[in-house]
């Protein structure tokens, strides 16, 4: 099968899955929804593997789609390593997420709808990945946003998910508006949407083969920067960057596995993917803006993550922070490193989310971390899995996060170095601080959620790490040895029974977060096959990873103690929040960004809201739309009314004048007729004469008009 057939068949299966699961509602189907979906997904993974085999060099496939004379937009499939790898990545993570969901949502009556959405999501996400041109990318980009909307609002009967889904979609729309304009601008400049052609034409610009369109006083370079920044707007919204990141924490109202897939691993990374696709035409200035925004977001979110209590919120802020890393990576030109971090992050963050999901499920939808704890024995496998993923996030050697994050840090440093530091240094510094904070908050979560609340901390930690490693080794060994054992089948079944789908999913994610998946050496990213493929700027700042590691470890230790203290405080004094410092408040409320939007931006549209009441139905009446509508009904429509009224008024006058003339005339005549018998010649003056005079006067008027005026 050719690559294009593979892709289309694969997409078709997902579409079919969506249609079947969405279109037919029956009890039986809802029982098998998950498994049907999984089958499709497994097929998809197989397809993607064959695609990886199939694609050896970069090429594009064009299928006629839209033809408008000079403007031809094909349905392009861009096949290269990026594509095939992401293609695989999405589906493999989706597989485990779906597997996880079979248990997590087993009791939900709308489970088939859930799987339908997931199928649609995977379909759209794959669409983003294979898209060979900007329009097509935008096409699927919107669709993934739509799926995200559907999944966040999956429990639509509750108000919080419904609100969160609306917020997510609208904020994404704002970003997408920027992206759309960016796309238009790119098309204006290059006369094409196609990525490969864009790259070629951009290359042609420097050699003078191709000339960019310009307009007004803008130079081509400025326009290119503008286009880059505008397209970045799309990524800002989708990948939750400052200042549009506020939707992502709210998006946690959706089902946790969906959050793992969409709002941690795949969709939010689409922004990074988009930027990677257009990176060849990003100008230096645009790159700098992107890098600054990314690193700034990273540190903001990391700071906020430190103070959260909700288990999913911590992870959400962490996601924002890590996305900031990737974005910054794109900004500094380290596309390979960014994509590498995207990949590692996808696995470990999905793992973390799935673990969180397992915990939440275990605790019957308790999400406050302060009320957790003591889970390390209750949920052993999840605990190990979580530990691995967390370590990967924290950037500890032997785990994938170490490799990818340090690749990014080094690239950022190299970028600053290449520009002779000065203010460029701010990027690596911010990222560095951010990664230290990362270590801090993930340790905090680890302590709060899993660790036993009593006991010697250092010993605990030691044991934890040791037993964690052992557990992993053991499970791994079990898996490996299962086959060549005589009672293999039974053993696997036993193992599966013991593990359950939660554990399998979490373990799979954590396994993928180990170093050997990506690199032969656990300590340096230079051996990472991934980066070799995707290209990497040379760097020689080998001291950075270790410095970061050192500081991170220190912060983790600090975190351990501080967190223990925090938990104690929580139990002793439940009014602790009252004495909160402003530092803490800022973190908890994420720099009051939401507050700002709610109280200053939103009133523009809705007017001042009375927050104590439930939202009034006609809230838009008070804001700008209300004003506009008032103007519309009062003035614009009013003009019509005034016109109509004016016409009626004039006609009233005309009619009255006529009536007056005629009525009086009639009266006069009848009077005349009545009196004529009695009084004969008495009727001297009176009305008839008057009206005759009037008529003659009119005649004379017209004469005068004629004679003297014209």
């Amino acid at each position, binding site marked *: 099968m050719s690559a294009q057939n593979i892709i289309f068949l694969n997409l078709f299966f997902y579409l079919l899955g969506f249609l079947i699961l969405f279109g037919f509602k029956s009890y039986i189907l809802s029982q098998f929804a998950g498994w049907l979906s999984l089958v499709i997904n497994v097929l998809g993974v197989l397809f993607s593997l064959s695609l990886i085999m199939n694609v050896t060099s970069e090429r594009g496939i064009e299928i006629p*789609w*839209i033809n408008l004379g*000079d403007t031809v937009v094909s349905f392009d499939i861009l096949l290269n390593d990026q594509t095939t790898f992401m293609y695989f990545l999405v589906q493999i993570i989706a597989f485990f997420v779906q597997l996880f969901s079979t248990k997590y949502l087993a009791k939900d009556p709308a489970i088939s709808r859930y799987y339908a959405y997931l199928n649609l999501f995977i379909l759209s996400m794959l669409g983003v990945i294979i898209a060979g041109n900007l329009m097509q990318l935008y096409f699927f980009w919107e669709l993934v946003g739509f799926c995200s909307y559907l999944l966040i609002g999956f429990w*639509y009967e509750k108000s919080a998910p419904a609100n969160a889904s*609306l917020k997510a979609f609208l904020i994404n729309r704002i970003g997408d508006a920027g992206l*759309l304009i960016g796309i238009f601008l790119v098309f204006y400049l290059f006369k094409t949407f196609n990525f490969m052609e864009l790259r070629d034409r951009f290359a042609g610009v420097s050699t003078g083969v191709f000339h960019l369109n310009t307009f007004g006083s803008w130079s081509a370079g400025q326009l290119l920067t503008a286009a880059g920044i505008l397209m970045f707007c799309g990524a800002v919204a989708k990948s939750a960057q400052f200042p549009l990141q506020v939707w992502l924490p709210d998006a946690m109202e959706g089902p946790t596995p969906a959050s793992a897939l969409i709002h941690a691993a795949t969709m939010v990374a689409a922004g990074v993917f988009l930027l990677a696709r257009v990176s060849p035409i990003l100008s230096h200035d645009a790159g700098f803006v992107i890098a600054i925004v990314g690193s700034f977001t990273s540190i903001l979110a990391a700071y906020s993550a430190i103070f959260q209590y909700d288990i999913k919120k911590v992870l959400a802020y962490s996601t924002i922070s890590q996305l900031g890393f990737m974005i910054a990576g794109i900004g500094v030109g380290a596309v390979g490193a960014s994509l590498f971090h995207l990949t590692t992050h996808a696995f470990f963050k999905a793992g973390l989310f799935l673990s969180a999901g397992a915990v939440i499920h275990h605790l019957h939808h308790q999400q406050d971390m302060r009320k957790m704890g003591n889970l390390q024995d209750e949920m052993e496998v999840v605990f190990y899995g979580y530990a691995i993923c967390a370590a990967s996030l924290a950037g500890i050697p032997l785990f994938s996060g170490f490799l990818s994050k340090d690749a990014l840090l080094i690239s950022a440093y190299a970028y600053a170095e290449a520009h002779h530091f000065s203010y460029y240094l701010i990027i690596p510094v911010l990222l560095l601080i951010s990664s230290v904070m990362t270590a801090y908050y993930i340790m905090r979560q680890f302590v709060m959620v899993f660790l036993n609340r009593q006991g010697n901390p250092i010993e605990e930690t030691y044991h934890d790490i040791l037993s964690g490693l052992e557990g992993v080794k053991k499970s791994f060994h079990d898996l490996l040895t299962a086959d060549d054992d005589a009672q293999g089948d039974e053993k696997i079944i036993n193992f599966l029974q013991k593990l359950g789908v939660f554990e399998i999913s979490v373990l799979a994610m954590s396994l993928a977060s180990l170093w050997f998946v990506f690199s032969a050496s656990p300590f340096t990213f230079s051996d990472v096959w991934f980066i070799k493929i995707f290209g990497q700027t040379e760097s020689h700042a080998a001291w950075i990873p270790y410095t970061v590691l050192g500081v991170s470890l220190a912060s983790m230790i600090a975190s351990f103690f501080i967190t223990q203290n925090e938990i104690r405080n929580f139990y002793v004094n439940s009014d602790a929040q009252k004495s909160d410092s402003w530092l803490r408040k800022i973190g908890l409320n994420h720099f009051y960004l939401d507050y700002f939007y709610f109280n200053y931006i939103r009133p523009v549209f809705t007017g001042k809201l009375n927050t104590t009441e439930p939202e009034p139905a006609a809230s838009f009446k008070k804001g700008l739309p209300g004003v506009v509508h008032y103007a519309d009904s009062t003035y614009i429509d009013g003009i019509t009314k005034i016109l109509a009224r004016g016409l009626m008024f004039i006609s009233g006058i005309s009619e009255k004048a006529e009536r007056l003339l005629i009525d009086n005339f009639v009266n006069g005549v009848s009077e005349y007729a009545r009196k004529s018998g009695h009084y004969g010649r008495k009727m001297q003056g009176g009305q008839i004469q008057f009206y005759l005079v009037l008529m003659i006067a009119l005649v004379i008027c017209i004469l005068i008009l004629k004679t003297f005026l014209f």
Partner: protein
Amino acid sequence: MNSGLLTSLIFLPLVGAGIILLLPDVYKASFKWINLICNVLNLINALTLYGSFNKTEPSYQFLEHYEWIRLDIGKSGVISIDYVLGLDGINLPMVILSAIILLIGGISSFSIVRRPKAYYSLFLLLCSSVMGCFVALDLFLFFLFFEFMLLPMYFLIGIWGGENREYASLKFIIYTLVGSVLILIVMIAVGMSYTDIFFSKEYGKTVHTFDFRQLKDTTNIIKNSFLSIDSPWKLMGIPARELMFVLLFIGFGIKLPMVPFHTWLPDAHVEAPTAISVILAGVLLKIGGYGLIRIGYGFFPDIAPDFTVWVAGAGVLSVIYGALNALAQTDLKKLIAYSSVSHMGFVLLGISALNAEGINGAVYQMFSHGILSAMLFLCAGVIYDQTHNREIANYRGLAKKMPFFTVAVSVAFFGSLGLPTLSGFIGEFFSLLGAFQSDLMPKWMPVLGVLGIVLSAVYLLWTFQKMFFGEYYISEKLEKDKIVDLDRREMLMLTVLGVLAFLFGIFPNLIFDISNQTVQEFLTRP
């Protein structure tokens, strides 16, 4: 050449109307079926035309040309009015759209019980004039059908409308009449200034023609006439040709509707019965856009570029202004009406760009808006039929009770807000793309247009959330306390439209292939 297909598009409904009028009232149950049959036949006819349309041929096809009026008006020549029908890439999509929407409107009319004879005969008259308007290639003929639409519409709103129907129907007719008076002026001016050179020789007199094929050609302008290119005639400093363009712009703008001439639309929509709203939004508004392309830009290609900023400005204004107004609405139907204003703004934006993307996009946007707005109004009708109330605030959590309805509404809403895979996206994307590529207008205009897309998401999703999410609740004030999901008829209509929305959202070439050649020729005209 004279295949008669186009004629039958116009006259079949007329025959149907005649049959309904002649049938005694005892057969009143059959009226809706007669209506349906006529519309189905028209749809088949339209699809046949689509199938046999030659996509590589830019000029008119299926031409039907009969001499009609040769009025010798003494010394100033002969007025020649012909019965010319034809299709090209711009009106074929409109014909197909009309056939679809009129059929849907016919099905939707099944719920009409009051005075079916009058209703269906007027309905078929409307069908006939709509079709005529789109296929006519003679300005006089076009105007005849254009005007003739007013009357059925006036009575359809006036008799079967809501409480305030008198006001709405009157406002509708006065507004539209003002628009058509403006067009009439242009028609008179054009009729005086253009001549058919070939026939003039034959008659030995100046033959004043209204044939689009002659009017497109600026060489047919009589020297030193009112509309000659170098006409010295001016009104308040505006040269004659520019003035005519402005008149057309406003005349069709009223129909479109374009801000600030839009205020008839919300009233008309709110009062009109569902089927008529569907047709009004789905088809009648398109005549404004179609007329502007065909007549405004077709006859005055030399003037059009100078007015791009104005047309595009009006488009952008409509987009933003309509959206802001839609935001402030509490009445579902009014909201949809204002969203129509907003979405038709993209048509203006696309047309004004004067490039392939823009004009094709505008045609596409018209087509797509026809389908989506029809869906929106049908959805509003579903709710209204059950509770006789359209206040958004009176409903909550309908998704639980009406799952199919929810799906239909979400398709319509997301289609309208431009979600890819639905037809709205393609239309808006290309209109905006065209506008952005055009050097005739400043770039901030399409940029503001993009803002309109954001706003449309706000009002549509906000409404969607209010009405369909949350706990199920219906205001106690409403008549019915029980709400049921779509019945089979509603399901059929909404499914068909929904599938079409997807079809045209995924395969835009179904329309672009047709319109492209004509638009290319349109743009390269000297």
